[in-house]
C-alpha cells in the first residue's frame, strides 16, 4: 500500500506543474463521488494527443459539417468537461463548484458573462495573454445540475455558438449574433 502510494506521489506532485504548463487549464476536482449520485454524468478529458487523434478523423472536406469543427478546434489544446444531473436539488454543494470558480482570478481570467439568479448561475471566463486567448471556462450551476467546461487554447465563441442546431446543440430561438451577449 505504502509502495503504491509512493508510486502515485510523483504523479500527484506533477498535477499542479501540468496545470501550469497549460496556462488556460483548470485543476478540476475529483467528482467521482458525485458521479455515483448523478442520474446523468459526463466526464470528458481531451488532452492535445487525443484532440489530435480526433481531429485526424474529422472530414477536412469544406462541404462537410466536420470542417466547421476542424476549424473551430484548430487553436485548441485541450477540452475538459464535467457535467452532472441529479434527480433532486441539493445533492451537490455550492462548494464543489466554488473550488473551480476560485481558480478564475483576475487579472489572468476575465469574466465575459456572469449572470446569477436563484435558479441559474452562468459564468464564462476567458484567460488572455496579450491578444492571445489561452483558455476559457464555462460554469453553469442549477439546483439539479452543474456543468464545467474548460477549453485550453484559443476558441472562437461566435463559431462555438453557431454550432446550435448541429451535433446535438439545441437551437435557442431569439438568439442573434454573439455581439449581443458579453456583459457581466
Amino acid at each position, binding site marked *: 500500500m505504502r509502495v503504491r502510494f509512493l508510486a502515485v506521489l510523483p504523479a500527484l506532485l506533477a498535477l499542479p506543474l501540468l496545470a501550469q504548463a497549460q496556462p488556460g487549464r483548470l485543476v478540476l476536482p475529483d467528482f467521482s463521488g458525485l458521479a455515483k449520485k448523478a442520474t446523468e454524468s*459526463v466526464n*470528458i478529458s*481531451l488532452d492535445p494527443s*487525443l*484532440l489530435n*487523434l*480526433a*481531429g*485526424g*478523423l*474529422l472530414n477536412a472536406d469544406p462541404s462537410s459539417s466536420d470542417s466547421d*469543427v476542424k476549424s*473551430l*478546434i484548430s487553436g485548441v489544446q485541450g*477540452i475538459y*468537461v464535467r*457535467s452532472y444531473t441529479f434527480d433532486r436539488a441539493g445533492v451537490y454543494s455550492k462548494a464543489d463548484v466554488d473550488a473551480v470558480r476560485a481558480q478564475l482570478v483576475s487579472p489572468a481570467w476575465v469574466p465575459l*458573462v456572469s*449572470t446569477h439568479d436563484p435558479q*441559474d448561475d*452562468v459564468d*464564462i471566463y476567458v484567460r488572455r495573454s496579450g491578444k492571445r486567448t489561452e483558455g476559457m471556462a*464555462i460554469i*453553469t450551476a442549477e439546483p439539479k445540475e452543474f*456543468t464545467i*467546461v474548460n*477549453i485550453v487554447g484559443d476558441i472562437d*465563441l461566435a463559431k*462555438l*455558438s453557431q*454550432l*446550435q442546431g448541429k*451535433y*446535438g*446543440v*439545441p437551437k*435557442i430561438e*431569439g*438568439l442573434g449574433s*454573439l455581439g*449581443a*451577449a*458579453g*456583459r457581466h
Partner: protein
Amino acid sequence: MTDKELEQALRRALKPREPDADFSSRVMSRLDAQRRDQQPLNEPAAASFPGVRRAGQRRQFRRWSVPAALAACALVAVGLVQWRHESAERQRGVEARAQLLQALSIAGTQVNTARAAVLREEQLLD
C-alpha cells in the same frame, strides 16, 4: 539384310568388352571426391549425378526451412501487432471524435444558455 545377318551384326555390336585397366580407380577417385565434398550441388562432378543433386537439395531445404519458417512467423507476428496497434489507435480516435463532438455540443449549449440569460436580463432592464 537377312535375319541371320542382322543377328550377327547385333552380336558384333553388343559384344562384351573388358573395361580399361584404370576404370575402377577412376570410379573410386570420383566417389572419394564426392564424399569429401559436402555440397555436391556446387560441384560440377556432383551435378552430374541426379540422385546426389536431389539429396543436396533436400539438405539445403532442411537447413533453410526452420529459419525461413521462423522469419515468416516473426513477420506475421509483427504484422499482427502492428494491425492490432493501428486498430486500437483508430478505436481511440473514434471515441475521441465522439467525445470531442459531445464536449463541443455541451460547450455550445452552455454558451447559448449564457447568451439567452444575458438577453433575458437585458430585456428586464429595458
